[in-house]
């Protein structure tokens, strides 16, 4: 199967000289659920933001759905971004708008001109957004302000927004870092189910090893901007963990997280 996303020798250097990523080469195919693990500052967040060019790469090629992101401008860039649904650690909702409106934001990239400016969404889109929110257990909150929801609910709205884009790939930047274990479980299951049902590719940055092991089809380990592990969850042994986190720094498993490794 053709990869939906390819990194070819991608490096990112920030203006202050810090190397965020070094020579990353990686292919991701539809249906894959890839967890990216690594210590803080290892470049996980940068890696995701290179995909839709929220951060531009310094060198190398990021190829999304057959197109090199570096060359795109204006409308072409926005068209590529539409294909990428993004889920954030801080949910990144517009708090003063309703849950329904936040979910519909996923369609903004598909609306042009005046319709997009005024938010005149198609009737079919509205129906779909409503059904999606109901299926995510948010039916009762459609008209609540997004700012009034709990963390887990906000993240489900974030997922609904990403799915409304009809994306080809989901990028999730620490989606459960700010959530309690029960909400985290719901979010991870939702991400896995939606990825399977829609045959998407899903790339998730995670700090929780057990969660990564439980949900992923593949795990990628970063250390100081370099790719030091790429393989199946079973292959993530003590030696691999030591390469990723450094000897003696492997994070301990929290009991709650171990509980939903089923």
């Amino acid at each position: 199967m053709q990869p939906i996303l390819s990194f070819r020798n991608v490096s990112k250097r920030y203006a202050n000289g810090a190397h965020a990523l070094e020579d990353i080469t990686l292919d991701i195919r539809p249906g894959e659920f890839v967890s990216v693990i690594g210590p803080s500052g290892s470049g996980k967040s940068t890696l995701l933001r290179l995909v839709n060019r929220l951060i531009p790469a310094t060198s190398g090629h990021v190829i999304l759905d057959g197109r090199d992101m570096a060359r795109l401008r204006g409308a072409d860039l926005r068209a590529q971004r539409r294909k990428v649904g993004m889920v954030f650690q801080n949910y990144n909702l517009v708090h003063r708008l309703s849950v329904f409106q936040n979910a519909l934001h996923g369609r903004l990239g598909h609306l042009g001109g005046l319709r997009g400016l005024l938010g005149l969404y198609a009737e079919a889109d509205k129906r779909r957004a409503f059904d999606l929110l109901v299926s995510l257990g948010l039916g009762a909150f459609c008209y609540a302000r997004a700012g009034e929801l709990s963390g887990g609910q906000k993240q489900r709205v974030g997922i609904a927004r990403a799915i409304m884009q009809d994306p080809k790939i989901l990028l999730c930047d620490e989606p459960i870092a700010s959530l309690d274990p029960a909400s985290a479980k719901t979010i991870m299951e939702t991400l896995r189910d939606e990825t399977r049902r829609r045959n998407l590719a899903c790339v998730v940055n995670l700090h929780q090893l057990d969660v990564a092991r439980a949900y992923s089809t593949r795990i990628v380990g970063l250390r100081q901007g370099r790719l030091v592990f790429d393989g199946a969850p079973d292959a993530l042994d003590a030696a691999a963990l030591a390469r990723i986190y450094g000897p003696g720094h492997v994070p301990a498993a929290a009991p709650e997280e171990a509980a939903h490794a089923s």
Partner: protein
Amino acid sequence: MPPDRALPEAVRAERRAYALFFGALLLVVALCTWGVAFNPFELFGKGDAFWTFLSEDFWPPRIPQREGRLEAILAGIGVTFAMAVASATVAAVLAFLVALFASERVSPFPRLAPLVRGAATFVRNIPALVWAFILFSSLGIGTGVGFVALTLSSLAFLVRAFAETMEDLSQDGLESLLAIGATFPQRVAHGILPSCLGGFVSWYLYSLEVNIRASAVVGMVGGGGIGLVLFSYIKAFNYHVAFFIILLIAALVIAVDWMTGRLRKELAL
């Protein structure tokens, strides 16, 4: 009371700093008073003339009896109010558009943002009254020119206020709209506007309040409205009617302050 040297060094340093500050302040005030050749005690010494003027010439306020005079005054109040509302509103709409380019976090051309802010700061630091004089000299007098002067000064003020409101907005909500593939106008309409509207309206109401006062002053130098009417009565030595007009202006200012104050309080909730 323990002797002074028992006090901690920090406390003594603070006392010295205060003593120095107030000593310097006294010196500066003395120099300034000498500079303006004004003795602050003169007001009490020669105060009689001043108090007589207030109590005899101004007091009591009088409503003009001649046909059409009162109507003219009320019309002047109406013009002043209209000038303030129109200029604040036009300025707010323009300021919103300009402010989008004055904030590095929002503008599609972040490098130009300091330039836009600098221009706004420059215009803002010239008071409305000075703008009025500049404009009257070049365009002639009238309410239209007064309106332009008020719009200019509120525009510059609101650009700054709106840009700061947008800077306070968390970057997170905007990043998600960028990731969705939304255009700049879409990000403004669906991210910035809903998040900042409360702040914008609050600043708009404040600017309306300021403009009511400013439009009375701008009116006096040729902007029309109640300021011009007041000035004509003062020039005609008709101080009783002038006092009546001053009370009317005060009532208008208080009414608008009260109203905008209430609205802003509601918005803060």
